[in-house]
């Protein structure tokens, strides 16, 4: 007769093993992929390889969906410079203004800057990794700040500024942590016409 409690234990054990394997896979993808390729490149029938790869892909998608596909490599590469983004709007009368967004308005309290805006840095860093994301945000800005003193918006400009941190060798001679040179780059410009 089937022992129900044993069956539950087996199922839970499988669940535990799947979870731990997922952690290893998503955190050490290079090593796991190399090992999997080694195994799958053995003279196996193509059909078998296909049959293995398909469900593995589905499992991977499912793990992503339930939130167990995280990669824990926070602060592994540290930034060697200060950087910030500046988002401006240009209106049809040629007037340019810095948009009153979190982290770029000066008249904010400490609570606004460090507590209520806690999602802003990660948002901006992820945003500027892909042009289509920037475009989505630009459209939002065009909608939100569509006029200034009655004048319609013309375009949104994304700027990036960088200022190097002084390296340890030169720090003794310096009275500040930062180099004087600030570099500026225009990341993208989006027209607000036809919106």
């Amino acid at each position, binding site marked *: 007769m089937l022992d129900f409690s044993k069956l539950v234990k087996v199922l839970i054990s499988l669940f535990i093993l799947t979870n731990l394997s997922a952690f290893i896979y998503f955190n*050490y993808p290079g090593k796991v992929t190399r090992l999997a390729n080694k195994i799958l490149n053995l003279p196996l029938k193509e059909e078998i390889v296909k049959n293995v790869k398909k469900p593995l892909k589905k499992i991977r998608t499912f793990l992503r969906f339930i939130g167990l596909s*995280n990669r824990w*490599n926070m602060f592994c590469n540290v930034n060697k410079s200060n950087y910030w983004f500046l988002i401006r709007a240009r209106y049809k009368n040629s007037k340019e203004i810095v948009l009153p967004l979190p982290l770029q308005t000066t008249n904010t309290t400490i609570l606004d800057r460090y507590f209520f805006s806690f999602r802003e840095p990660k948002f901006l860093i992820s945003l500027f990794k892909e042009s289509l994301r920037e475009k989505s945000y630009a*459209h939002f800005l065009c909608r939100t700040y569509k006029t200034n003193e009655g004048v319609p918006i013309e375009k949104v400009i994304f700027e990036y500024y960088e200022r190097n941190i002084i390296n340890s060798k030169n720090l003794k001679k310096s009275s500040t942590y930062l180099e004087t040179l600030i570099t500026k780059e225009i990341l993208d410009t989006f027209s607000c016409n036809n919106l």
Partner: protein
Amino acid sequence: MKTLFKIWNNFFFSKFDPVSASIFRILLGITISLMFIAEFPDWERFYSSDGVLSLNEELYKPPFYKQSIFFLFEKFLPVRYLWYLGFIFSITFTIGLFTKFSTIFLYVFFISKTHFNPLVGAGYDHLIVVLLFYSCFTSLNYYLSFDNILNKKRKEFPLVWPIRLIQISIMLIYITTGLYKIVSDPAWLNGEAAYWTIVQNIWGRSNIFPLLGYKILFFSKIATYFTLLVELLFPVFVCIPATRLFAILTAIFFHLMLIIFMNYVDFFQLSMIAALLLFVPDYKMKYWLARARILK
């Protein structure tokens, strides 16, 4: 083989006194509630279809956004109501009222948030998702909860496997991030990583440090190597009963220091501290709570 099964069975399928799990629930609940308060002003901006991602237009589409409760909910009611709902459940989770339901709801809520707008999803969200996911399988309301007051009938102690999964996840997080640091950036080996991080305008609270001058490098060496030691050795020391408490307290101290010296990572540190409490042996936690007159 039989011994291996026995060890596996004892490790994952024994019962445990969930006193530390209850304290974990309270601290995690407070962290989540604070997070909700911090998100209040930007809620629609980040989590509505008309928000920063302009999901109503044919532009960037996150892979799972249609499976998010935010997407489904918005068809019927303004997304602001979800904030109220989420906040209420973060409170019921903290005080241990309808704990199981609150845990499941918060898990679905958090995973939905990262699906709807992955651009704002950060380490703290992913960590909270993991913690809530495993918490769905255990009972966090055994002590210091309204559920316990309302239902006086003493329940059996739960199986320990969900807590073990959280503990293993935390240990793996430390080891993984520690190993990645060593191989990714020489600054972690020459002791300068803390300097670059603290001085950096986004992540570091550099405004605390202008007075230190170049002496900051000495401080940086201590902080960098301390970070590596905690991340690489915590999983070892926490497994040894004699050093367990020392490992937990050192790791808590480490996370408190990060709250002091770094910006925008507070919710991650608070969630990690909550998870670290799950390593505290139940008798020790009971003793502390009794001394603080929280438990009889």
